[in-house]
């Protein structure tokens, strides 16, 4: 494969928490413009993989490149939707304010967000259907609405690659539909989206690429080619059907 068409390329990535191995010698390529799900059992290192790509965790070994260059040089091409539970939602701030944070990266140090940034943030909120809640305190939003705020924040980053950590975790039907629509829209616009996903049943419906991960990479490729019993068993063990039906 040509390097140019690869949104993310990972070589020999090893990550350990307190020197306990979490990811081992991962090679992974994400072609540009795909909607990829990363699936695997709990503790498989899915979130860790994303965090390592984004430079939140320092890997022990390996190289990661975004469109052929290291992450530090390509930050503006990358957006991130962390797990909803990773922040304190009682923080004194409004939904709009959180979405505005998506523009901070392009602003850089010290410069304050202005009208232009506000416009971007409002547009992003509109896309996820959160415009009516823009002045709500974030603790007064439902779990699904909070998730959409995070999604809007990533949209405000206006990136080429989106990394989302369990965006469907514990959300209502409205939010699920909103997220799927956004995913489709992003794909239409030629963006690359990598999603840590839990619900195996919806993988074929929502995504076109999939990566099976369990400490090692098991398989990666188009859903229609590799989303099969063989790979599921390799990733989840013989009892994977329990995981599917959960």
């Amino acid at each position, binding site marked *: 494969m040509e390097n140019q068409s690869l949104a993310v390329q990972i070589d020999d990535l090893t990550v350990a928490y307190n020197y306990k191995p979490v990811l081992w010698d991962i090679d992974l390529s994400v072609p540009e413009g795909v909607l990829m799900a990363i699936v695997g059992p709990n503790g498989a290192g899915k979130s860790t993989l994303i*965090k390592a790509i984004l430079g939140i965790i320092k890997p022990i070994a390996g190289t990661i490149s975004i469109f052929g260059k290291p992450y530090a040089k390509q930050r503006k091409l990358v957006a991130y939707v962390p797990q909803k539970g990773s922040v*304190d939602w009682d923080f004194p701030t*409004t939904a709009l304010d959180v979405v505005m*944070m998506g523009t901070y990266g392009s602003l850089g140090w*010290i410069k304050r967000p202005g009208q232009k940034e506000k416009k971007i943030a409002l547009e992003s909120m509109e896309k996820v259907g959160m415009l009516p809640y823009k002045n709500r305190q974030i603790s007064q939003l439902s779990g699904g609405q909070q998730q959409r705020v995070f999604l809007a924040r990533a949209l405000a980053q206006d990136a080429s690659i989106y990394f989302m950590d369990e965006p469907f975790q514990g959300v209502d039907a409205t939010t699920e539909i909103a997220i799927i629509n956004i995913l489709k829209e992003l794909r239409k616009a030629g963006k690359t989206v990598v999603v840590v996903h839990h619900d195996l049943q919806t993988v074929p419906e929502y995504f076109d690429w999939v990566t099976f991960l369990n400490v090692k990479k098991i398989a990666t490729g188009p859903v229609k080619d590799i989303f099969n019993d063989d790979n599921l068993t390799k990733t989840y063990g013989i009892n994977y059907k329990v995981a599917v039906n959960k």
Partner: protein
Amino acid sequence: MQEYFNLLWTDYTLRTITLGTAVLGAICGMLGSFAVLRKESLLGDAISHAALPGIALAFLITGAKDSGTLLLGALVSGLIGTFWIRGITSKTHLKSDTALGLILSIFFGFGMLLLTFIQKQPNANQAGLDKYLFGQAATLVESDVKLMIIVIGISLFVMLLFWKEFKILLFDADYTKTLGFNTKFIDVLITFLIVLAIVLGLQTVGVVLMSAILLAPAAASRQWTNNLGTMVLLSALIGAFSGVFGTAISASQNNLSTGPVIVLVAGAFVLFSFIFSPKRGLLFREIRFRKNRTDLKLMKTLQFMYGIAQDHENISHPHAIRILNNFQGYTRDSLKKLEHEGWISIDGQQWAMTPKGYKQAQEMYNQQKK
């Protein structure tokens, strides 16, 4: 009261002290907000205790008594304490509460050892070191206040300059990192400002009560606003007011040291806010809770009536009130309320559903089916 204000204008010392406590309250309130939001409320307590040996050592080494030198010592030892706490929690399995309590008590004990040692020295012109234990606002002089104003100016400048960075780091540190900000730098900057504020307050309120001056204004202001900027501003105001008011009370009474009075004033703010804040306060929470409960009862009664009315062709067919007796949620009071809403009409011992009430009950019924 009038007399006190006259005194405030004419008495130079009182004016200095009042200004000093006001500025101190403001700076602590402002930076305390960050400490509270970072869930490092008790770090302030540990830092203030950890600063004590620094003061004593600074005196032992330089022999100087001026606040500047002593505060520098306090700053250094406060920072050592802070980073040691972090070292303990990150490198061992001891938890933060143990690390805080440990550093707090050991540094304080060491400080006491040094202070008592100094007192026994022949050249002990040490008068004044004790004030750092409980604080003595009365010892504030103009140069101290000037120092405070400079520090608050610098803190304010840094805070405004890095406002965006402070906010995003406090809310979501990992995300901040992915955007390319140097989170360690922002973190150290915030910590440094907090330590600076604490050290500055030692002379006025003392080691023991310092943490309350830091926490109370922030805990109170958090109840009134959902905006970080407003919260910081409000904390600063509450802090400043506690300082001024506390000084006034202690100056007008005999034998009252300023520190504890300021703490009590700030504590009163917290208590008031906890109870009376319209959105989060306990009082309104209880009222809302009760109201919801009555609403629920009302709705249940309405639904029961709906069940009866449904069986008749004319929904507004009157029924005897006593048939409601079998239904538990019903009281005279709730009937009156239902009538007040226009959902039923009451005529003597009979009630009838209005079309409006019928519609309301129907909607509720449909909603439940969903």
